[in-house]
């Protein structure tokens, strides 16, 4: 089976794709051969067939244009050929939304984070830092399932879950819902630390790290506790910015190491 790189690596292929991308709705079956000829393509019929059959170029009525695969391929070729990486990356993020580094999130950022774990359970480590942690049964159920799927991929290895919770009030009734969630998380294998009373923990930070087989690097920094919220909340959703998230993980550990083990 022919590889994509072998198709677009042929002489004239890059120029052809650039011309089609720059002039949508211009080239028909006659003029496309003219472009190939001027680009120095040695086997126009062969290249034409490969581009069409592999879905890089598509035909709309009379005219040809790049498919989304073709557009992505061209961007990567541009990067290889020396174009500004940041510019290429930004344009790729337009096609792959999940490549966007930063996004504003509002109320529901916490649920969104947990749903994200559930929908894409290829993670190796999760970090939860929140003064208050109280998850509903449904949300805990999703988290538990996400962990099971993640561990299933790992075989014998386990997924790490690190949790920092704020100091308890000392009132049994008030602290109970938080302790119930922490106990459930502990049963799921989480390593939990309780932050000292002073200085008061106020950070809300949630991070997922990929597994050894890949996955997303993601973090949420915001105003929402790991609880259901009726407040107006705002946060930043960070994806794949390894430098920034690496810094956040370091901050997490600094806080984590000051805490006392729970249970």
């Amino acid at each position, binding site marked *: 089976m022919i590889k994509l790189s072998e198709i677009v690596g042929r002489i004239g292929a890059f120029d052809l794709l650039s011309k089609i991308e720059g002039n949508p709705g211009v080239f028909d079956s006659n003029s496309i051969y003219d472009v190939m000829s001027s680009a120095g393509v040695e086997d126009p019929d062969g290249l034409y067939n490969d581009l069409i059959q592999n879905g890089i170029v598509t035909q709309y009525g009379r005219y040809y244009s790049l498919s989304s695969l073709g557009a992505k391929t061209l961007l990567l070729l541009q990067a290889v050929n020396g174009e500004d990486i940041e510019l290429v990356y930004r344009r790729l993020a337009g096609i792959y939304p999940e490549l966007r580094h930063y996004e504003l999130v509002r109320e529901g950022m916490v649920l969104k984070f947990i749903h994200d774990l*559930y929908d894409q359970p290829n993670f190796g480590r999760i970090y939860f830092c929140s003064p208050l942690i109280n998850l509903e049964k449904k949300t*805990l*159920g*999703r988290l538990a*399932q996400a962990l099971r799927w993640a*561990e299933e991929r790992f075989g014998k290895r386990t997924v790490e879950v690190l949790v920092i919770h704020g100091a308890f009030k000392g009132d049994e009734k008030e602290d109970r819902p938080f302790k119930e969630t922490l106990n*459930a998380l502990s*049963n*799921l294998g989480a390593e939990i630390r309780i932050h000292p009373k002073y200085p008061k923990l106020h950070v809300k930070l949630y991070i997922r790290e990929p597994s050894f087989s890949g996955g997303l690097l993601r973090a949420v920094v915001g105003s929402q506790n790991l609880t259901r919220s009726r407040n107006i909340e705002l946060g930043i959703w960070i994806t794949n910015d390894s430098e920034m998230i690496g810094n956040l993980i370091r901050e997490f550990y600094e806080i984590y190491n000051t805490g006392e083990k729970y249970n």
Partner: protein
Amino acid sequence: MNQQTTVEERFGLARSNFVINPVSEADFWAPRSDVSIELLVENLRVDLVIGLAPKRFIWGRYGGGKTHTLHKIMRELEKITPIHPVHIDCPDLSRRSTFLELYRDGIMRSLGEDFVLGLFDASLEEIGYARREEFLRKLKETLGDEELSKAVARLQDPNFDRIKLWAFISGVSVGKSDLPDLGQTQDLTSAESSRLAEMIILIGRLTRTNLGKTLVLILDEMDRLGPPSGPGPETIMTFQTAFRRLVDPNQKTVSILIGCTAEARADFPEIFASEAVMGRLGRDPGFGEIEIGGLVDPDVDRFIKSIIEHFRNPDADIASLIQSASSGTSETINEDFFPFTVEAIAALKGRLSQIMTPREVTLTMSRLLGKAYLLNKPVVTSDVV
């Protein structure tokens, strides 16, 4: 006589016929010499006290009182120990039917999705949250079945479509695309009947541990397992395999009460003629096999009296009704048999077949009542019969 009075009003009854509902009126029991309910109950106690789940095979002619006896036993069992009774009428089968059809269309349908999945929910609640390996280990310990654990584990996921698990457990065919979601490579449609029997036993075990009740399956009309409509020689073994497991004395979690119409032992469906099944039920009188014969003569009078007493309206002024009826006939009327005269009862008995069944008696009584009513009579006399 005013025909505007109802049948009930004319004859001092609470209902317009004498037809007993064997399920809803199981508490009613007319004494009969061939079936000692006291002995049956005593034998139930014996089984329970030694840790066995009672299994009984009740057979007899059509209309003889098998279903009523089954439900009476169940009611008595309920007084001794908490039970979860489930009545199952044998579904329509064909010569190619296997135990799967009885399992799916009879037993699981009657148990119901809410009940069965509810048991699994309760078990999961008990286990709580745990790491995958430990969670599955605990679930396997509870269910005793590793493959089933993988499927049941999905119930903890709030996004999981529960109907998939119900389809799997209940023996319905599951689409290939749904099997991986249940952690399975095949559904139960190709499972051995012994595995299906184990599913039933598991449900019994969970009923005991989660609800503190004994699951009682009342499998009625099991004569359908015999010819002409029952399973053929190629598939009969699947039933035998399953029943061997279900009625085994070592099976202590599900009580099985079987009802089967047969005139004689030679008429039993092949499954129940086999020593493999009946031997496990046991042949101790009143324990394994219970024959419900016809009503013999002294029993018929007692039966009729009990029926009349059961259906009599407690608020009716029977004495007045008898007095009023007496003026119109020379036949003997007493409180025991009113709204029938003594002579009418004798004539009724003469009309019935040699071996009388409760159904035959109650139907005939009901029809005579109707006839007397339409003839404007205050009592059923021998000429009505």
